[in-house]
Every structure is written in structure tokens, then in C-alpha cells.
């Protein structure tokens, strides 16, 4: 009897203890003087570069340990916002343009004014992207532009000359038509339903805009913007791109990597994945985007930010500073994953994959247009997904979808206030 009681007591104590253990797995922990920081990122291809940077940091700071939290981009900001609402976001994390102002305006990010960051070390467009109300909240990590990736073997097979820096929209469209060979399941290009790599670029090239300069009204209703959208929907309608259903079943980047797409509009960050794939390792190359009414590409970049409510502000700031250093940028450049934001280290990145003309991404800088954002970018990004889907599956004209998107976006922007 007594033994039974003791056993029962022990069992229920064990239960209670395990429940208590669950609740103590907060954002960070420290024991015996050593502090563990959590660092949230979303790109798996960059994980090893980040791991190398952390190793260098830990060597200099033996009392700080950094753990990477990798969350795929699709869920990254949903998870982050939920964690931040509960006061337990990671100590240091990646931030992007569309989400920056939301976090900065709501006091989730630590101001970095006391760190003495030399803003001249980074491209000015990146510094202004991560400045809110004259305060810097993030140190630029990298930047990226969009280029025209192409499959040399498919161009050779179709007898089409490789794209050049002088290509116009007409050259591009003619080549896409010639390269399409439906019997073999090969298409000229994939019209991905994606802003940054596809329709933002063409809207800017057509002379249109996504959001007005003051960030208060939608730019989708202008004829120029509509022609930027039609650029893609026409390719789908003509059959030079797979249909939206096909691209939904198989991602366009997968089609390009398996030799089913002759051309792919992709970012500078794609170089590392293409170089690691036997099909694209030496078979593909890249050049600048074709010229529309004018030349344009989207420029965007990430920053490292510190959580305002971190339990270890000093250690987090130390790590933040290291992430913004030239040493970290050099490690990043060597791996060829992304173009580091630290001025002077970009050439190292260009040389990381000599088989690709990566200089093209830097050649585009003079006419690069900043990624369109507002205080609550996610609200109208969701509308872009729903409304433009109707133009992409050809159930509505580009003009009708753009008109609907424009009015919905204006309503969303009005809600943001000042």
C-alpha cells in the first residue's frame, strides 16, 4: 500500500515537472556565465555561411553561444509575429523590407544609434530602407538585384543567340517564342506570379509604379503598370510560359533547374543553388534584365535586427555588431550565397562563381528601384496574391485585375494612417 502511494506521488510529480519544463523553454537561457542567443533566419542555402560567421564570433566571445533557428520563409514572419506578440521573439533575427516598418513602428526592434554604426560602409539605399523616423534599426546584411538567367544548352538546341545586355522586351519575347517546344515540354520562360523577381521589375521597366512615392496610394491603376502585368499574362496566353496551374504544381525554379525552362528571372541569391546543381552548374548563365520603356530592376536587401525585449541586450548588440562587420561580410562573400552589403566586399562575391557573369547584378545598380513597401506591406501583398491570380489564370484581363487590386490596396493603405 505504502509503496503504491509513493509510486503514485512520484508519477504525478514527474508529470508536473515535465509541464513546468515545457514552460521554461523561453527565448534564451544562460547558465554559468555563458549566454545563449537565438538567431532566426529563413534561407537554408545561407545556413552554412551563417554557421561560419557564428563560429568566428564565438571564437572571439567564448562566453556567448549562438543558436540558429531556421524557419522556411513561408512561415517565418507568421511565426515571428506570434512570438513577438507573446514577448518571446529571438534575440537577433533577419528582417526584410516589407516587414521592417511594421516592427519598427510598433517598438519591436532595438534602436541601434548607440552602436556607432558607420552608415557610409553600406549602400545608402539599404541604410534608408532600415531607417525609421531618423533612427537606424537594422544593419544591412546583403542586397540583391534581379537578373535574366538562361539555359545555354536550350538556346544552342533552338539555334537562338544568347541574351545580351542590349536586349529589349521585343528581343526577349521573340526568343521566348522560338525557345518554346511543347512536344518536349520546354517553355521559353516561366511567368512566375512573384513581385520582386517578375512583375515589379516589368512594372518599373514600363514606367509604372507599385506604390506612390509618398506611400499613400496604389500605383496599379496606371496604364504603364498594367502593361507591366500584361508582359507576363501575354506570355502565358501565347503559351510561351507554362500555365498558372502548371507553375503551381511545379515551381518555376525547379523547372529551370531541370531544363524545362530556357529563361528564368531570378535573383542574385540564386547563384549558389544553381552552382550546386549538376544540371545548372555550368549549363546556365546570367545577364541584365531586358529593357522596356526604360531599364529597371528591383533592389532589396536584408538586415540583421535586435529584438527590443531581448533578455541579453548587451550580448545581442555585440553579435549584431559582428554581423555588420567586414569580417562577417567577407565570410558571406566567400561562400557566394548573397551580395554582402558591406561596401568593398562585393567583388569577392562576383569572383565566387567565375562561370556566371555575376557582375551583371552589380551593373544594374545605377537604375535599380527600391522594393516597394509601406507600414503594413503584408496587407496589400495578400491582395496582390488573390487579385493577380485571376489575371495569371487568364480568367480576367490584366486591366480588370489591376483595377480591383488598386482599389483594395488603396483601402488597405488608408487603414495604415500616417
Amino acid at each position, binding site marked *: 500500500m505504502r509503496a503504491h502511494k509513493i509510486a503514485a506521488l512520484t508519477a504525478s510529480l514527474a508529470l508536473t515537472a515535465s509541464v513546468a519544463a515545457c514552460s521554461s523553454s523561453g527565448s534564451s537561457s544562460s547558465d554559468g556565465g555563458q549566454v545563449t542567443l537565438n538567431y532566426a533566419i529563413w534561407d537554408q542555402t545561407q545556413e552554412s555561411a551563417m554557421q561560419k560567421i557564428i563560429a568566428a564570433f564565438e571564437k572571439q566571445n567564448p562566453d556567448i553561444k549562438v543558436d540558429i533557428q531556421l524557419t522556411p520563409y513561408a512561415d517565418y514572419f*507568421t511565426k515571428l509575429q506570434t512570438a513577438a*506578440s507573446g514577448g518571446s521573439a529571438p534575440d537577433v533575427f533577419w528582417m526584410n523590407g516589407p516587414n521592417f516598418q511594421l516592427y519598427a513602428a510598433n*517598438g519591436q526592434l532595438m534602436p541601434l544609434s548607440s552602436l556607432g554604426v558607420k552608415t557610409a560602409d553600406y549602400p545608402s539605399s539599404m541604410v534608408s530602407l532600415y531607417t525609421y523616423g531618423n533612427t537606424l534599426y537594422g544593419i544591412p546584411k546583403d542586397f540583391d538585384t534581379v537578373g535574366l538567367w538562361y539555359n545555354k544548352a536550350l538556346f544552342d538546341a533552338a539555334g537562338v543567340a544568347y541574351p545580351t545586355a542590349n536586349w529589349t522586351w521585343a528581343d526577349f519575347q521573340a526568343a521566348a517564342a522560338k525557345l518554346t517546344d511543347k512536344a518536349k515540354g520546354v517553355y521559353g520562360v516561366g511567368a512566375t*506570379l512573384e513581385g520582386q523577381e517578375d512583375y515589379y521589375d516589368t512594372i518599373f521597366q514600363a514606367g509604372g509604379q507599385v506604390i506612390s512615392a509618398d506611400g499613400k496610394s496604389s500605383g496599379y491603376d496606371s496604364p504603364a503598370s498594367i502593361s507591366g502585368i500584361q508582359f507576363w499574362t501575354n506570355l502565358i496566353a501565347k503559351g510561351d510560359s507554362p500555365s*498558372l496551374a502548371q507553375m503551381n*504544381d*511545379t515551381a518555376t525554379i525547379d523547372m529551370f533547374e531541370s531544363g524545362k525552362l530556357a529563361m528564368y528571372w531570378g535573383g542574385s541569391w540564386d547563384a549558389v543553388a544553381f552552382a550546386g546543381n549538376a544540371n545548372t552548374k555550368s549549363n546556365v548563365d546570367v545577364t541584365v534584365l531586358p529593357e522596356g520603356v526604360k531599364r529597371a530592376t528591383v533592389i532589396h536587401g536584408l538586415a540583421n535586427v535586435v529584438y527590443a525585449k531581448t533578455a541579453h541586450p548587451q550580448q545581442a548588440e555585440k553579435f549584431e555588431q559582428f554581423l555588420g562587420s567586414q569580417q562577417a561580410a567577407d565570410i558571406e562573400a566567400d561562400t557566394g550565397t548573397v551580395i554582402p552589403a558591406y561596401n568593398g566586399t562585393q567583388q569577392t562575391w562576383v569572383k565566387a562563381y567565375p562561370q556566371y557573369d555575376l557582375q551583371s547584378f552589380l551593373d544594374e545598380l545605377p537604375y535599380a528601384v527600391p522594393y516597394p513597401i509601406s507600414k503594413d506591406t503584408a496587407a496589400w501583398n495578400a491582395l496582390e496574391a488573390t487579385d493577380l*491570380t485571376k489575371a*495569371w489564370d487568364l480568367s480576367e484581363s490584366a486591366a480588370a485585375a489591376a483595377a480591383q487590386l488598386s482599389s483594395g490596396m488603396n483601402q488597405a493603405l488608408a487603414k495604415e494612417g500616417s
Partner: protein
Amino acid sequence: MTEMATRDVAGPAGSRNASRAASPKGGAAPAAGRRRRGRGRGPNTSAWWALFFLAPTGIGLGVFYIWPVIQTFYYSFTSWGPFGGHTFTGLANYRSLLHDPALSSAFLNTLWYCLLGLLGIPVSLVLAQVLGRRGRKGVSVYRTLMFLPVITMPAAVAIVWRWLYNGDYGLVDELLSKVGIKGPYWISDPHTALIAVAIVGIWSTVGYNMVVLMAGIQGIPRTYYEAAELDGAGPVRQFLSVTLPLLTPSIFFVMVYSVIGSLQTFDLIYVLIGPTNAALPQSQSVIYLFYQDSFINNNRGYGAAMAFVLMLVVIAVTGLQFRLQKRWVHYG
């Protein structure tokens, strides 16, 4: 059979239980209770012990189920900022629910998931009948195979089915093309997406239903079949006149369970369909919309209202099923 045997052997214990059942409310008669427990120290200590042992489950239930329901009810009258903090807005959320066209179509889609999900029950019934017989060669292998989807993570299931459903390289369309049918882009075509999701839903619950029905079939006393056989009933007649009527309690349970499961369809849609899919409006469920509104658009209060309405619908549908069961369920 075995149950009866043990009860017969434990004769005295059995009669003690019977005397307990005779008193209207179990432990209401303290004298009987004390005598029954023998070694105990009175009913009070026993009640405390009962509470003590119930506590881990009870506290868990309270903290993780009941308290959130109360909180959700309160939050459904509030409006939320992007990083928490809320203001009371009265019935505003419920008013906008009434005018949300996406919600009414999501309810319609969810209704379809329920109806299509019910088609899984006849399938499970046939499987239970075929795999329920003992002694057949390899029967446990097939039972395991049928049950495997139940214990597999829905996200993993959905990823594998995404490949199977692929319109260009998928196995499903490949097999269809062997018989000369050009298969659709199952999960990207607005006409087929809902059916495609429902098929995966059925596939992953058939194993569970099968086990419940199998247990039901095995619980039917052998004597009924012997009597039916004497009356000259063949296997089909036996199934229709003995098995089916006596299995109705199990079928009813499976039905209630399947409808509640279908009303909560989410993960399959999240992984199979995805946000930039032209078929999303024709296939999203109420829970998907709830996720979209509360976690992507950060309308937590609105999401809470939606969740609460869905809870009322679940209660109403289940209540209706319990009323209707009187007409067709036989408790042998």
C-alpha cells in the same frame, strides 16, 4: 465470450458490484461503501484520492482547453494590434462576419468536405468486413498498411500527395494516361481541388474508421449468425440483416467523428493548395480562412469570432446527429 468467463469466475466480486449498482448513486450508502472497500478509511479520503488522481488530466483540460475557449469568446468582441494589445469593439466582428463573402463560400466548401468525408464510411465498412476475419493469410499486414496513414503526420501526407497529384509528372495522371485519360492539374484546377483534398482526407481516416468498425463487428455475438444460418441466410443476407443493424452504434460514432474532423480540415489545404493557387477560393475551409485572418492578416479578434461561430456549428451539427440517430441506430 472471455468477458463473461472472467465475470463468472470472480463470482463474489460480481455480486458486490451488483449490490453497488442497486443503490441509486453509487457511493450514496456509506455503510455499503465502507464494507465494499474493506481496507479504506472512509469515503472522504477516497474522494480526495480520486481528485488527486484526476488532477493532472483535469488541470490540463482546464488550462489547455476550457480556459482558451473562454478567452476566445472574450477576444471575439475585441480588435487587436499587430503585436498584441486589444480594445473592446462589441459586436463589430460578428457584424462583419455576416458580410464576408469569403466566409460563406468557405462554409459551403466545408459542407462539401463533410459530405465527401462521409463517403469514407462505406469504404471502411467493406475493409472492416474483409480484414476483420481472423486467420486469413497476411491479414495483419494489410491492417497495418491501412492504418499507417492515420499515424502519419498530415503535413508529410500532403507533401507526398502533392507529388502524386502533379499535373505534369504525378503518378495519378501517369496511371490515368495508361487508360487514355488526360488527368487534370488536380490541386490547381478550381473544379478538382476540393475533391482532391477530400480524397486525401478520406484516405487518411479510413484506417481509423476501419479499426472502430472491426471492433464493432467482433462484438456481435456469434449466436445471431448461427441463428441466421439455421434460417438459411447466406453471407450477404447475414451482413445486411445481422451485421449492419447491430453495427449501427459503431457507424454512428464513426460518422460523428468524421463530420467533426471534416469541419476542422486545415493542414491538408494549407500544404496541398497554398496561397497563390487559383483554386484556393473554391477549396478553402473555414479553419483555413480563420488561419488566414488571425495569423496572416493579424485580425485576431475577427478570427476568434469566426472560431466561435464554427464551434456553435459543430455543436449544432453534432446535436442534430444525436437527435436523428434515434431513428436508425439499434442498441442491440
